């Protein structure tokens, strides 16, 4: 039975990588289409995600789905092996709660901390640190948020597990450090080095270069704005 599974994404996006990671965990073969989101979104992308016009978009036998965590739950429900969510409804609810916390609180706080002008940075960093501390408490001595294997929360927190440390290196900040968040820091090592994850991550040098260029660009814009 020929199954058509396609992912529209961009190489650096943690959101489209979430979908690819879920597919890799499930061992599902898929075709990947790289979108040029800054330059030229493809007509197919705009057709399949008219509401948000963003990546990732997932296509299964011609039927499109948008929103990375909605897609991940669809993948979980469609391909039953190597579960990403616990079976118990309460544990499932806990996983969804933390995935939501990452998406709706942690990530916005981290963006803000990384992009705030100098005078607002201290407060933004403090809020981001509070989020990381709270997230760390959800680990509770486990290797992954999902227990012994990567689960929904690990997938949702992929930015924290890999992208953040590279961004920190490029920006010269130290938000997620081994001293401040030992358990979360250790988790990020486990996450980004575990076999099913590391093959689905963007290349380190390319991402680092991208972040450096982005930061330089932001600084230049700030300087121009204040001139």
């Amino acid at each position: 039975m020929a199954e058509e599974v396609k992912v529209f994404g961009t190489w650096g996006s943690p959101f489209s990588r979430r979908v690819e990671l879920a597919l890799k965990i499930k061992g599902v073969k898929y075709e990947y289409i790289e979108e040029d989101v800054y330059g030229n979104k493809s007509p197919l992308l705009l057709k399949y995600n008219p509401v948000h016009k963003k990546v990732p978009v997932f296509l299964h036998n011609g039927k499109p789905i948008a929103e990375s965590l909605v897609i991940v739950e669809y993948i979980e429900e469609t391909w039953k092996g190597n579960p990403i969510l616990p079976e118990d409804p309460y544990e499932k609810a806990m996983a969804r709660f933390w995935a939501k916390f990452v998406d709706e609180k942690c990530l916005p706080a981290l963006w803000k901390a990384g992009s705030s002008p100098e005078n607002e940075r201290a407060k933004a960093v403090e809020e981001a640190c509070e989020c990381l501390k709270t997230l760390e408490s959800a680990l509770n001595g486990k290797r992954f948020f999902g227990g012994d294997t990567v689960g929904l929360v690990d997938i949702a927190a992929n930015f924290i597990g890999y992208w953040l440390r590279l961004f920190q290196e490029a920006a010269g900040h130290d938000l997620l450090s081994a001293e401040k968040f030992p358990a979360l820091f250790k988790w990020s090592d486990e996450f980004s080095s575990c076999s099913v994850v590391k093959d689905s991550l963007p290349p380190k040098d390319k991402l680092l270069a991208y972040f450096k260029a982005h930061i330089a660009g932001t600084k230049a814009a700030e300087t121009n704005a204040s001139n």
Partner: protein
Amino acid sequence: MGEENKVVLHGMWISPYSKRVELALKFKGIPFEYVEEDLQNKSPQLLQYNPVHKKVPVLVHNGKPIAESIVILEYIDETWKNQPRFLPQDPYKRAKVRFWTSFVQQQLCESLLTVIKTDGEVQQKAFGNLFEKLEVLEEGIKEIFPDGNPCIGNYNIGLLDLVMLSMFSPNNKIQEEVFGMKIIDPEKTPLIFSWLTVLHQLPLVKESTPPDDKVVAIFKFVRENALKSSLA
């Protein structure tokens, strides 16, 4: 009600997030104890059950707490498998419901709250945003109501319905009193208007709806507070 299935809901009477959980329990016929929280004076239990957000609603099932209204709604549907089912069985249809629920929750509700809490240019911009998003939803729900008009008979209330009806109503009178205009305009978004009309006429919803003057009063209160604190 036996101790093996004890359900407690910590909520607040005007919170739409709390209301949708309350209605979900009622629609499923699940007996529960309701604890009204004073948000200026949160109970120690609430703070213990939801240390991360310290908010309502919190559902406590046999002593185990769950926070975040949509997470709670999915939990209720997975634990009490009787009708109405809040999500369809088919994974693709489930994804569609979750997609639109996320859209309503994150985009529409956010715009509405901005409209309520701001004035002047900021509010005007927020209105524009809100109407734009309502039009997107109007288009999007055509695939959910392919026959055009939702009708009240045997309506199977679901996740998207619960989230939408707790935040929006077709009651133009209230909207005109609070905002000076219709938010859900039967001419601009006829499908949303008739959908909300059906939802708000369901007996369980009707009996849980506070009287108009109370709703107007709370909107005005929230708005005044928000405007005051933004001047401070």
